[in-house]
């Protein structure tokens, strides 16, 4: 069941509170989005600031070229995340985001959906996708809290940054040929709040999940013995990439910090010229001119820092998280192979057991129980044969699993590299462009001032003329 929207949602439409948020209120498991925001529902204005972000799936059709260009020709699903709203209950306060979907895909009953989701719903979706497709590369989610304190936790900027990241996450999933077909993804986009809650409760029970975890830990402790060369190469690359992107993230944040401190001093600098002009006659105008130039440069600097924070910083941060995702994917692949190897070893051991002479102890024991030694040996052989057959079946399945996992990863790896290049290239390009623009604007400010000085008659000629 879902609600249809009568018309394409216009960019200015805000504040549509879904009729039933009761489902949201019962969600108390995690405190990921237990954020005490100001109880101000004008947070909906968040999306107004961002003129460049498409605020409806409809407007996104025209802007799809800003997303992944590979699939833009065949894009059949458009998703936007916007309109953050805070919800206050007696127990907690949290934010929900509106998720709008327009699609022509046949697996969806309708062509348009509008739902509200909170951060922990996104977390759930990511978890499910990773469980189901353990060696595919899922785009990272924004973090729960920003530890470094660069972005304040409880203000509009934080919400906006998170909203953009959530938007990107869903679109990356939608662009993925395999992940976008996931049933969990479909439910996430289309189900009403209470439906989602019900759906979430299905799936493997607690105990079976525990069992899987234990096995995963055991496998990772054992380690993989014969990792294919190409995956070792990928792992080495991921290590290096992780270091480099981490450094870039730090450097960029440092630049933002230095720029902000520079701006603070600059703001005090202009007024000193104005102050001076108050004591002067001939020089007053010129001093005020310089003060004005500095002030205008201040504004440009502020804009430039803002751009850096909005464009480059989030992308670098995203790829820091990506690096961690990649490491996890490689680990999971290794674990799958480790499990397969372990079973193979078990098989070999069993075979050795079966083909070995019966031990004296077994013979003695059997004779104590009054068994015929021949019969005992035969029984034992039968039992081991059965077990070996079972093992062989399991090993076949595991072998398939390993092959599938490796192929999935290989395929996704190329895809990831391409989109990484695209994302980082465009972020750096945008930064460089903005910096050029910044210096051009400042140049114009000072050149205008200089021009105004040079067109004034010089002191020398003036003196000749004045009595």
């Amino acid at each position, binding site marked *: 069941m879902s609600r249809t929207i009568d018309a394409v949602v216009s960019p200015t439409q805000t504040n549509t509170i879904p009729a039933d948020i009761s489902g949201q209120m019962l969600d108390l498991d995690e405190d990921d989005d237990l954020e005490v925001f100001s109880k101000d529902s004008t947070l909906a204005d968040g999306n107004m600031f961002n003129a460049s972000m498409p605020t409806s799936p409809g407007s996104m059709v025209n802007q799809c070229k800003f997303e992944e260009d590979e699939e833009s020709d065949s894009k059949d699903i458009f998703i936007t995340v916007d309109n953050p709203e805070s919800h206050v209950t007696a127990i907690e306060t949290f934010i929900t985001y509106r998720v709008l979907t327009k699609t022509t895909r046949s697996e969806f009953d309708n062509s348009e959906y509008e739902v509200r989701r909170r951060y922990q719903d996104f977390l759930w979706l990511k978890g499910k996708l990773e469980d189901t497709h353990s060696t595919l590369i899922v785009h990272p989610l924004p973090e729960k809290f920003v530890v470094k304190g660069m972005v304040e936790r409880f203000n509009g900027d934080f919400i906006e940054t998170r909203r953009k990241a959530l938007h990107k996450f869903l679109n990356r999933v939608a662009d993925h040929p395999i992940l976008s077909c996931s049933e969990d993804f479909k439910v996430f986009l289309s189900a009403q709040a209470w439906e989602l809650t019900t759906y979430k409760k299905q799936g493997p029970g607690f105990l079976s999940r525990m069992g899987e975890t234990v096995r995963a830990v055991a496998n990772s402790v054992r380690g993989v013995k014969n990792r294919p060369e190409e995956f070792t190469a990928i792992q080495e690359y991921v290590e290096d990439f992780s270091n480099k992107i981490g450094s870039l993230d730090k450097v960029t944040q440092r630049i933002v910090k*230095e720029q902000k401190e520079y701006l603070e001093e600059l703001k005090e*600098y202009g007024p000193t010229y104005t102050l001076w002009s108050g004591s002067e006659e001939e020089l007053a105008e010129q001093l005020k001119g310089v003060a004005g130039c500095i002030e205008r440069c201040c504004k440009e600097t502020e804009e430039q820092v803002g751009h850096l924070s909005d464009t480059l910083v989030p992308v670098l941060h995203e790829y820091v998280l990506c690096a961690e995702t990649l490491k996890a994917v490689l680990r999971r692949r290794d674990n799958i192979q480790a499990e397969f190897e372990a079973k193979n070893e078990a098989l070999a051991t069993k075979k050795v057991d079966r083909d070995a002479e019966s031990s004296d102890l077994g013979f003695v024991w059997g004779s104590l129980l009054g068994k015929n030694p021949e019969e005992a040996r035969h029984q034992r052989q039968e039992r081991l044969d059965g077990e070996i057959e079972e093992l062989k079946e399991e090993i076949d399945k595991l072998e398939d699993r390993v092959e599938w996992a490796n192929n999935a990863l290989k395929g996704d790896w190329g895809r990831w590299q391409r989109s990484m290049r695209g994302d980082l290239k465009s972020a750096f390009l945008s930064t460089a462009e903005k*910096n050029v623009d910044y*210096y051009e604007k400042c*140049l114009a400010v000072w050149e205008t001032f200089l021009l105004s000085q040079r067109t004034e008659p010089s002191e020398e000629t003036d003196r000749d003329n004045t009595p």
Partner: protein
Amino acid sequence: MMADSGPEEIAVIGNTDLTSAELENNIKNTMVEIEKWTSLLRKMEISVGEAEKRTGKNTVNMQEIYTVYLIETRPVDAVTEGIIPAPDSLWRRYSEFELLRNYLLVTYPFVVVAPLPEKRAEIVWHKLSADNMDPDFVERRRVGLENFLLRLACHPVLCNDKIFYIFLTEEKGWKEMVYETGFQAKADSRLKAMNAAFRVKNPDKRFTELKHYSDELQTVVSQLLRVRARVADRLYGVYKVHGNYGRVFSEWSAIEKEMGDGLQSAGHHMDAYAASVDDILEEEEHYADQLKEYLFYTEALRAVCRKHELTQFELEMAAQDLASKKQQKEELVTGTVRTFSLKGMTSKLFGQETAEQREAKLQVLEQQIEEGEEAVKEKNTESDEFVKTAWIDIEHFKDQKDRDLKEALISYAIMQISRCKKGIQVWTNAKECFNKM
């Protein structure tokens, strides 16, 4: 070059490499300008060339290292004959410059004497060393000392001073000469007067205003220089952090195939960007020095105002003294005691004086009155003379200040333009590299 002489700009020949043609042309311009005042610069080129370190014993017989500066002079005429002879030269240290300036301050109290460059680096930003031995600081001081000499040489009054001339031309014995002038005694009394507290009843309003102006100027320019230094500090940080991009891009390019080239070259541009700030801020330091000169000028302005106050005070004291003597005479003559005086009290207590005593006193008073009137006349003339000459110099100073600072502000704008252009270039290059990624 900021020094000039009088209303017209003459070619100031400082420590630059001019071709002989340019020199000729400069001299022609010089000769063409008809000036009311003579200028030493018409007669000789002055420059402060190099700086060297010397060791020696100081006044408390301890080893010290100090810097000496080479002063080179050459008569202007010598050049027109087509041959450029070697300049005469001698070495002077900073303390000798100080001595010269103190001498001039005392000898010409109505002149706004150009200030010396800083003895120690005061308002600096963190990268600049506050060490007196730092080569950059020494270089900037050299420029400042040259500027100081040129300003003196352009000054209509100071340029004719003998002590100044000998400072430039004779290394040995100059110090003794200065002390022989006896200026030290005047210097001491001047210092006392500067620090004394007295109230003037009728100061010339213009001097009062000038004193306020110089106080204001000192405050605003100090503040400006301090903030500028902080801005420079921050700007340095911004540029230098970009150098890290250079390093990381370079390392990252090693593990990338397609992006490698683009990243590598972008990294080079980031390094260039980070390195560019050194020259940018060095240039700005010269701008700061121009402002500092006028910051230090305020002290000279205040000195002239103070001298006026002192002169005016002495005049008022003399007049007051005369008035009181006249009053006393009148009382003696008429026998009335209008004002309280010890004489009046004692005469009341001990009886009136004899006629002879009165006569004697009267004569003394009349003598004193005559002397007093002379003194007042003298002081009046002195004061008028001072006000007149000082005010000419002050007007001259104001014009010079407006011209120099206007030029400084323009050069500051030019510096900013240059920095912006460099920024545009670097980031345009970087953008192209990113495009190749």
